[in-house]
């Protein structure tokens, strides 16, 4: 236990500004009263845990300060910068490398949109793994320790046949719908996620990747009791992990099965950790919070494509600025056949499926 602390302890040795109660600036809000009161009343309770926690006071103080910070949306720019420094220090110590935590806001004139060509997708799942590499998901082997935000759904192809021409439902009542009615021609199984063929694409299958649709009217945001999840001005729905209480209401509300819950402490090997992070994006999560796709905010806020777009071998995934008529997504919306998943739910996703 004692051998491993040396680099983290030295990196995090300087006490964070807001971690020390004696340095706390006097403020008038109810939350700050709670904060100072909590410091006194809870310190004895936390003291034992802090003593047992080995990197010592620095890490304990950082966590202490993290627990008492505001909802990210209510923070002033100074508080955001403070939170950023605090996290950078802690992560750099924990992962033995220089970790940056970006707090770039939504850029003016950018509204992100995503398009996916379902005729092109070959079901190779490279996007799934790229997402894990980029976004620091948990990648353990025990149950509940592996988290993937994208899922690729395999659907078997059916067919229309001439001998079913006059068949329909219900049979024998004289009311026939006819013309292959009610035979599941496009699909003969519910979707499969666990397919393991030697090679993809298979002859009789279609593939449909799903992830967060970044809805314009997101049900998950509506139900969040602590308002930790919300839409950013440039489109993506994000989560302030520090404010999440893990109630999983959003997971129940999401019609696209796009959210994942950290049931265990995330397993993130130090050497695989991606050190370029965003506060609302891929910074390492804690146990007991919900996480989801955020279109790689740490990349897209600086103009870079999301990780899943960059690795798709067939170029089925497209990303762009919906406000820019020259962008790829705008051209797809203008020119191709586009649909949105579960459009009848009026969630208005900014993720468009298309085919040509």
């Amino acid at each position, binding site marked *: 236990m004692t051998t491993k602390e040396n680099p983290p302890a030295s990196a995090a040795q300087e006490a964070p500004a807001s971690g020390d109660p004696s340095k706390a600036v006097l403020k008038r809000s109810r939350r700050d009263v709670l904060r100072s009161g909590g410091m006194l009343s809870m310190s004895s309770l936390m003291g034992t845990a802090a003593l047992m926690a080995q990197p010592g006071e620095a890490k304990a103080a950082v966590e202490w300060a993290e627990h008492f910070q505001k909802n990210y949306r209510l923070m002033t720019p100074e508080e955001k910068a403070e939170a950023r420094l605090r996290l950078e220090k802690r992560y750099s110590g924990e992962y033995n490398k220089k970790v940056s935590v970006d707090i770039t806001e939504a850029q003016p004139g950018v509204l992100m949109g995503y398009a996916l060509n379902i005729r092109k997708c070959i079901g190779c799942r*490279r996007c799934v793994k790229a997402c894990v590499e980029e976004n620091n998901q948990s990648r353990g082997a025990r149950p509940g320790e592996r988290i*993937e935000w994208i899922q690729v759904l395999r659907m078997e192809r059916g067919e229309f046949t001439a001998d079913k021409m006059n068949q329909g439902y219900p049979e024998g009542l004289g009311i026939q719908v006819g013309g292959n009615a009610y035979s599941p021609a496009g699909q003969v*199984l519910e979707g499969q996620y666990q397919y393991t063929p030697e090679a993809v694409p298979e002859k009789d299958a279609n593939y449909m990747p799903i992830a967060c649709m970044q809805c314009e009217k997101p049900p998950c945001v509506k139900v969040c009791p602590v308002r930790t999840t919300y839409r950013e001005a440039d489109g993506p729905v994000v989560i302030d992990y520090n404010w999440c209480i893990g109630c999983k209401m959003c997971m129940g509300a999401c019609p696209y099965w796009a959210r994942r819950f950290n049931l265990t402490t995330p397993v993130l090997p130090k050497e695989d950790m991606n050190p370029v992070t965003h506060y609302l994006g891929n910074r390492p999560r804690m146990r007991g919070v919900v996480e989801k796709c955020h279109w790689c905010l740490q990349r897209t806020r600086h103009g870079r494509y999301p990780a899943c777009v960059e690795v798709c071998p067939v170029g089925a995934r497209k990303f*762009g600025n919906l406000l820019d008529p020259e962008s790829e997504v705008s051209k797809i919306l203008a020119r191709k056949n586009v649909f949105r998943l579960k459009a009848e739910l009026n969630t208005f996703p900014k993720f468009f499926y298309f085919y040509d």
Partner: protein
Amino acid sequence: MKRFAVPAAVLALCGAAILSVLAQDKPAGGEAAAPAAAAASAPAEVICFESRKGATEITQREIKPGLPNVKCSPTTGAALWYADPYEGTVPMGKMPQMEAIPEGLAVVKPRSEKLNLLAQCGTACHNGTYPVGFPKTNRPVPIPTMEALLPDAKNLQHGRGRVWCLDCHHNTKRNMLVDHYGDPISIDQSQLLCGKCHGDKLRDWRDGIHGKRIGDFTSTGKKRWFTCTECHNPHNVQDGARNKGFIQLQPETPPQLPRGFKDAAFEKTHAIPQH
């Protein structure tokens, strides 16, 4: 909001107390495993393919301490993650109807130096003169001498046999392709050749709808464009009987099974009823 915030903070506090205690032994195990893994992978050079096997490849190296330029999939050997999307690229050069893109913003990865046979073809046999017995017409014929060199030549599946070597390759400059006027074009600009027939695909490729690009997503940003032959094998473009434009690949591993399930049989228990 405030009503929820107070219990939330208390919950978080208690959780943190437990977490900080539990977190103790976690990193120790990870640390022990890390040097072993690093020692095993250090000596061998890791090369992964980008879009399809046999086309562009990329060698893994460190661009910063602990940060590789690319991550390769341990199961399939495919490139999984780019830290530097522009590595080894050169400006794409002039393209018709793409004059608006400033020089240097559209880059491609040259493959011509990787194709070993090219230098040979230009010097050894086809040094600008037709060999003896060379067919005088464009009728596709079997080429027994080339089959040993190019396994692709045996099952040329382009245009269902209507296309043959010299429809694409320049007849005297063997390491070049040929455009509509019979002028040579670089093998790194295969889109100029492919667009001769596949004009609709060329238009979509130019507008970013077809094909793959990496780098900057804004319409004015710098991008690495993937040219036609980085994804499609021009000699076997229909992939045999499957009649598809993209060759089959080994998929990555499936997601973790739900808790309590031994295999994926549960996925097949919900067949849609047939009437």
